């Protein structure tokens, strides 16, 4: 247990020292505030409070930012130590590989959680102050923060996987960029294309929602949208959410971090320092 904490503490120190924590938090605050003010126009027409609209905009933001911020820390986690020659030394100490990976994961997740909570929290507070908030929109905000952290956890684990598989940190960075593009952009484009080709056939009605929810980024979106009527209205995405049972999106978003971590652990086992 002390070994696990030792790794976590050192990783936290690194994130603070190299300004990652500061920069990530700043990015989150700025983007969330910008979206909150820019997205405050339709409040009157939809009949929902400003915080609800703000949460809907920030959901879209988080789909892009949470995976990106997570991959920015995690790609270096194993490949960087291999490059520096310090992995062999680290592994010559009595800490196991699982312990090392879990220690890094804990530190990185804590940093992400901090950035998310401060960023979305600030924007939420501002929106509530200027445009009012109800119990429902406050729950939506809490849900947004929690699911964003989960989404970050998915991409942290996937980043470790790539970091263990890649030859060197530069290659890992490249693979991470590719992974981000596939999950966040290309996957949806591909699905959109399939739906257009299918013209409301069986694929669109029964297969498509499941394929969609299998992607953690889309599961994140669906979870946030399906749970709050107001957010769904504000984001204009209700169709796909209604076709699935309520547990589908949460299940996907909860299984992915575990699956990713198991895969990363298996890949790390095969790394020869």
């Amino acid at each position: 247990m002390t070994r696990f904490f030792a790794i976590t503490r050192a990783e936290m120190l690194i994130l603070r020292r190299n300004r990652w924590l500061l920069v990530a938090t700043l990015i989150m605050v700025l983007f969330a505030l910008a979206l909150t003010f820019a997205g405050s126009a339709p409040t009157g027409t939809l009949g929902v409070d400003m915080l609800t609209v703000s949460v809907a905009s920030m959901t879209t933001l988080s789909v892009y930012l949470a995976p990106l911020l997570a991959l920015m820390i995690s790609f270096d986690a194993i490949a960087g130590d291999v490059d520096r020659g310090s992995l062999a030394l680290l592994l010559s100490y009595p800490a196991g590989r699982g312990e090392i990976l879990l220690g890094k994961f804990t530190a990185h997740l804590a940093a992400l959680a901090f950035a998310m909570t401060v960023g979305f929290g600030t924007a939420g507070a501002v929106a509530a102050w200027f445009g009012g908030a109800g119990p429902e929109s406050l729950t939506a905000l809490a849900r947004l923060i929690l699911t964003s952290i989960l989404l970050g956890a998915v991409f942290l684990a996937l980043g470790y996987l790539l970091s263990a598989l890649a030859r060197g940190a530069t290659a890992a960075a490249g693979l991470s960029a590719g992974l981000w593009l596939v999950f966040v952009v290309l996957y949806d484009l591909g699905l959109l294309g399939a739906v257009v080709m299918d013209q409301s056939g069986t694929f669109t009605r029964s297969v498509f929602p499941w394929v969609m929810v299998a992607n953690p980024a889309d599961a994140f979106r669906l979870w946030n949208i399906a749970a709050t009527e107001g957010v769904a209205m504000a984001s204009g995405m209700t169709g796909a959410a209604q076709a699935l049972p309520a547990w589908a999106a949460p299940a996907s978003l909860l299984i992915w971090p575990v699956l990713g971590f198991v895969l990363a652990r298996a890949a790390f086992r095969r790394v020869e320092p």
Partner: protein
Amino acid sequence: MTDKALTIRHVCKDRGKTRVLSDIDLTLAPGERVALLGHNGAGKSTLIKSILGLIPVESGTIRVGDAVPGSASARRDTAYLPEAVSFHPALTGREQLTLFARLSGERADVPALLDRVGLSDALDRRIGTYSKGMRQRLGLAQVLLGRPKVALLDEPTSGLDPISRQDLYAIIDELAGQGTAVLIASHALTEVEARTDRIAILRKGVKVADDTLANLSELAGLPIKLRVRASENADALAAELGGSRVNGASVELLCSPADKMEALRRIAAMGEAVADVEMAPPKLEDLYRHYAREALQ
């Protein structure tokens, strides 16, 4: 139970189709300092990583004390200094060493350890600002954590200036003095010459020699080199002594250790014709060349 700190028996290791370690036998007693010599790619680092349990071997056994490499107790009992090690540039020397101390489960006096390797001024500076030699010394400081049974040093002198090399060997002696068996992999032959109890030579994954320096010299039967400087006529001197002329004024001749005194007497008998005599016993470099070549045939 074994009284050896490190036992290696019939270890073989393949990389693809090439055999990188072939039937290696090596034992280290507590407090013994052994140099592991070989060219780049001779298998030194591979052997060290096998001892650490970082890479699996095809056959043979390795034991640290009685423990299997990679086991919790073997990891506790080994200290390792990787070749040209680097650390995360964002941490300070103190933070990095504290991490290692916590990982090893030792209560260590981190400032004292860093002082021991001459880094007390750089204690709270980021490792990113360290020179190569300073990083190497930080690596050495973590070797001193706890009381390892075996210390494995991979090219410990690379990047060190002559003065810190002296410090390095003082630290190695200190480790040996507390009962740690020290294995030093190196290709800087002249440095390990006087500083180790035993020398093992690896050549393309095969151990070609393993003995004390004196025994190795005797076994090799390498000649002693005598360089005689003539006062006037070097050609006449060469004809008289039977050696070869190396430059305008000097003659070089080789003789076996047994014939050394006889040769010196002959030179002394030539009186005024000789201006100076230099005698060079075989160096580790010559020995190394001898054993490496012998294996080739």
